[in-house]
């Protein structure tokens, strides 16, 4: 395209992956071209390797101790901060979606929904524990209580066509409960996911709490399910064969397996504290009552 002398050349964005609070390119050097409906290349997207995934798990594991020990109020504040930062970049996210062929109205609704969902889960940070905990009236002279604790490292395969809202609806309940995660972005709509990582980076979310990969689901699904240092795997919209394969691989270290299929992420009903509970463990503690 010819440009006049006065016209400014726009700076194209490089879409990278997000591991341990840094934005590397995939170590494999591979990429896939994301094209618009007319076949023009929008961006070259990192085709993450299993080594990238391994590095992301290391980062996520390293972040568990600090993030799970952060108090609930702080985690709520940080989730709210993500919403604030996203609100400020609303137009960028809408524009990216439109590049990928989403109509403006739909894109706006999706981004607004994502912002609101972050606020929703921010509010749960210091409440879900009160909903799901229990003091258990045992028949002996002991005080006995059950509380939730994060399961640890969660591998998430985001919805393929859930938009930013679908992505946020899976990340937020995992991290608000003190887990860290590795997320595989939608293969066909990865732009918002990478930009969302940039928002996270600017939102006081400690490095390693959320790690974002782009790439081919077919290459990475097995890795997500089979890694022995991953505690839970959430997969959205997998076909039957993939779902079976994921659970079989997950069985090697008895991962928690959470399948989320055909969820209408735009509905209010798609958000609840039960999604937080999905990646929580119940711990029951006993102590004598005496002198």
């Amino acid at each position: 395209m010819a440009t006049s002398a006065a016209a400014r050349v726009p700076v194209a964005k490089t879409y990278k992956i997000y591991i341990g609070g840094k934005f590397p390119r995939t170590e494999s050097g591979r990429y896939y071209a994301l094209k618009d409906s007319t076949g023009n290349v929008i961006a070259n997207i990192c085709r993450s390797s299993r080594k990238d995934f391994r590095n992301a798990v290391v980062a996520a594991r390293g972040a568990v101790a600090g993030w799970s020990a952060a108090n609930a109020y702080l985690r709520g504040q940080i989730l709210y901060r993500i919403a604030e930062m996203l609100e400020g970049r609303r137009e960028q996210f809408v524009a990216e979606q439109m590049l990928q062929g989403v109509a403006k109205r739909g894109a706006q609704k999706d981004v607004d929904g994502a912002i609101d969902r972050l606020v929703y889960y921010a509010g749960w940070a210091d409440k879900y524990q009160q909903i799901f905990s229990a003091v258990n009236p045992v028949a002996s002279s002991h005080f006995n209580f059950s509380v939730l604790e994060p399961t640890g490292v969660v591998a998430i395969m985001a919805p393929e066509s859930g938009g930013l809202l679908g992505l946020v609806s899976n990340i937020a309940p995992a991290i608000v409960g003190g887990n860290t995660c590795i997320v595989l972005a939608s293969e066909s709509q990865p732009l918002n996911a990478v930009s969302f990582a940039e928002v996270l980076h600017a939102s006081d979310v400690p490095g390693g709490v959320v790690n974002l990969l782009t790439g081919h689901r077919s290459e990475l699904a097995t890795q997500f399910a089979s890694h022995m240092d991953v505690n839970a795997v959430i997969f959205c919209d997998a076909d039957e064969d993939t779902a079976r394969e994921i659970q079989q691989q997950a069985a090697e270290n008895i991962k928690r397996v959470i399948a989320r299929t055909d969820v209408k992420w735009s509905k209010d009903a798609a958000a609840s504290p039960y999604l937080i509970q999905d990646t929580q463990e119940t711990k029951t503690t006993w102590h004598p009552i005496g002198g």
Partner: protein
Amino acid sequence: MDTQVNKLAFDSGWAYAPAPESTDHVTIDDEYGLFIGGKFVAPAEGGYFDTVNPATEETLSRVATATGEDIDLAVAAARKAYKGAWSKMRPAERGKYIFRIARILQERAREFAAIESLDGGKPIRESRDIDIPLAAAHFFYYAGWADKLEYAFPGRTPAPLGVAGQIIPWNFPLLMLAWKIAPALACGNTVVLKPAETTPLTALKFAEVVRDAGLPPGVVNIVTGAGDTGAAIVNHEDVDKIAFTGSTGVGRMIMKAVAGTGKHYTLELGGKAANIIFEDAALDEAVEGIVNGIFFNQGHVCCAGSRLLVQESVADDVIRKLRDRMETLIVGDPMDKNTDVGAINSKEQLGRIESYLKLGVEEGAQMYQSSCSVPTKGYWCRPTLFTGVSQSNRIVQEEIFGPVLAVQTFRTMEEGLSKANNTPYGLSGGIWTDKGAKIFKMTQGVRAGVIWANTFNKFDPTSPFGGYKESGVGREGGLHGLGAYLKLEA
């Protein structure tokens, strides 16, 4: 080995005469069929196997081997009952049936206790004071939930899953049956349950209770057999839910088998719990906790405190006290009311334990066993502890499932916590200290589903139980245990 100064003597003088539990109120049939659709029926292929008293090696009864055809019938009976009487019944009425079961178990408690000890080898004191009363209490607890489920899950409408296939282990036969059946029925499901092949008798006697309580036929079906029978349940197309308690190896196979089928599952698997003793603990009570942690039920306990982590400054004291205490444990006839440690459940399990004893010695650990004598017939293992072990030893890493304790020391709280968590398991843990702040730090830090602080091996129907990591998926007991048998609709 015995260099201890000022040693106490427990092996002479006044001793306890035998105090055998009477068995004149116990009836065990020569042969048991399968309990399907409210009746005992013969197995389709006609196979039977012996169930043996592990303390005497005598055969107690012959029990049917259920094969695929039998499982088809059992699941069909359960499905019919689920679609029919059980789901049409008002929840409060369903609860009343479960209350009835609890009451009958209480009435027949001595009989069940005796059979549990005869069939499984556990001391009659434990069957009588722990297994059977707790089993009855589980039914009593969950009975009351039947008509209150909507209060348990805010914002959700609970619904039963359908037919539950349940597979239970041999270490707490009736208690594990209660953990499985009570919440399943309270939530409106029907069940096909398989007891372990070495301990089928109390489950078959429980079938009599179900019949006497007047439950609609097919609500509870009891099928007996070994691994193949279990596999037939797991793989049955018309089962909605699998609940399994047993080894992590089998749990892994089940999780793979149900992959892609949409079957719900809960798994309660192995463990290698650390019992962590700090220098400021009430040491004598801690020693009791260690003993209860590893020698309760011959150490056939998934949440057993099989690793002792003791702070270096008190390690010698604790080990001396522990050895003295081990000398007072009475090992022998499970039917004697004074027996503390009974028979190992099976010849196979004894072989497994003995191979670990050999391995521990080969790995360079020092083995100490109580000096008690054991009977010549039957399967026995003296209470055993290993000192001089390290984290890399297999006897520290692997579940032995016997009365064998591996003792390690630590210096700081961080070291203790790090050693405790250095395992793929996460079922339980013990913390012993007199300092409140340290209790909370440690109980939060240990990655396990059940933490006993200044106590160990306590169980209650209201208290959720289940593991982190490779120790399982889901919880049994308490409000949280309901989640295993319901789907929650928005």
